């Protein structure tokens, strides 16, 4: 029975990895096809007069397929959809980065909105912890979005590439602490009464938590908010280390609160993109539906795939797309 289960698990893995490989390969091929459009983006008249080499419906369809796979990978790799979406779609699809970042924010926002109710009801995401951090991050995200939409495309690409590569380094080096020790909560967190308790099934008991270093965390959330708004990446990759390692929030609460925080941080930035005209429904809607369906499938196959393999795929994808954005920004690989 267990052999059958293991064999079924390993065939699932083979299918999944082959599928992911096929999609990665196809987006590399697409990048070649779409070069004309990417170049054309800087010469509007040429684009408007130009003919496309592929039927128009291919791109939204391909976008749906790619975001569906990204949704699966994001769940299995334990990362947010936004952090994969922007560099990969921005690097290999013919859409301008302005629209990709707007779509990325709405993708991350939809995922956070969908996850939020369950996390809040189970007490894993904490509203009291979220409100002060969200206020800082969402205000900063407005500034980030306005900076991102004002900078030249090549500068945004360079900064995006560097950020993605920095995220890869964080993924490699950042440690996690399941139940950090907080000897003495700081006075600000005491004044705000930020502390909590949740039931941990793995331990079969309730875990109490409190936080420290709140003022420094608030400062870091200024930076996180600006980056979330500027690149449309979502910010789970930065939220979790700050909540968990700096403030001493238990890992489960940190991950859940981070997801919920995105629903507030990304909202303000999404409004700036929406009001600036940087939203094209044909890019946004297939992406949201694709990544959500992918996430549902990802959750279902979570038990039969090895997280380590998927983690390496995520790191590989991020490194490749981060380099692509950087080289594109530098004019080396356009």
């Amino acid at each position: 029975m267990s052999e059958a289960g293991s064999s079924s698990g390993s065939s699932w893995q083979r299918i999944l990895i082959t599928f992911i490989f096929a999609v990665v390969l196809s987006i590399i091929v697409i990048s070649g096809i779409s070069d004309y459009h990417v170049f054309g983006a800087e010469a509007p008249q040429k684009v408007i007069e130009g003919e496309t080499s592929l039927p128009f419906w291919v791109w939204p369809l391909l976008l749906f397929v790619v975001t569906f796979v990204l949704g699966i990978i994001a769940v299995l790799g334990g990362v947010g959809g936004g952090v994969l979406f922007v560099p990969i779609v921005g690097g290999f699809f013919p859409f301008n980065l302005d629209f990709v970042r707007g779509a990325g924010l709405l993708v991350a926002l939809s995922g956070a909105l969908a996850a939020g109710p369950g996390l809040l009801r189970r007490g894993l995401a904490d509203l009291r912890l979220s409100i002060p951090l969200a206020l800082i991050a969402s205000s900063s995200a407005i500034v980030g979005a306005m900076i991102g939409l004002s900078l030249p495309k090549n500068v945004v690409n360079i900064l995006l590439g560097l950020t993605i590569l920095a995220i890869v380094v964080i993924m490699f080096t950042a440690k996690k602490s399941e139940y950090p020790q907080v000897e003495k909560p700081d006075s600000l967190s005491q004044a705000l009464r930020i502390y909590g308790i949740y039931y941990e099934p793995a331990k079969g008991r309730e875990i109490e938590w409190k936080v420290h270093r709140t003022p420094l965390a608030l400062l870091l959330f200024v930076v996180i908010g600006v980056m979330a708004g500027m690149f449309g990446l979502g910010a789970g990759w930065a939220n979790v280390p700050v909540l968990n390692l700096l403030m001493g929030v238990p890992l489960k609460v940190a991950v859940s609160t981070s997801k919920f925080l995105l629903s507030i941080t990304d909202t303000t930035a999404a409004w700036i993109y929406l009001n600036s005209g940087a939203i094209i429904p044909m890019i946004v809607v297939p992406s949201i539906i694709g990544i959500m369906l992918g996430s549902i499938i990802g959750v279902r196959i979570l038990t039969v795939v090895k997280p380590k393999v998927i983690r390496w795929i995520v790191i590989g994808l991020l490194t490749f797309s981060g380099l692509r954005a950087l080289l594109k920004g530098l004019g080396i690989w356009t």
Partner: protein
Amino acid sequence: MAKELKPTEEQLAYAVWLDLGMKIGLILLIITFGLYVFEILPPFIPISQLPKVWGLNVHQYLQVTGIQPGWSWLKYLDRGDFLNFLPLAMLAGLTIICFIRILPLYLKKKDYLYGALTILQILVLLLAASGLLRVGGH
């Protein structure tokens, strides 16, 4: 102060409204996208022409298409593409509604500090949504 395992009243209220709004928003998004992609409602930008504009930056895109930024899409809700902005704006506006929902709960508990933070958060969200802060591209 004793800690309770059960989430607070305001956290649960937030969750209920978020859940309801998110579900309505996503269902509407799928419906409006169907109306758009099958051209049941004619789009403002013909779908077959999209590849000619989606590579432009926002500034060029607005110039070429003649689309006005901000809330002007409300005038074109009879167009398939602009109709999709309705559920998108709903999803983006959901957080504002949830914060408005929990404000009286904080005030009722005399938790004025979180009441003030909630008011500030609502103001920040309203400012972002207002259209006063937008970028015309580069």
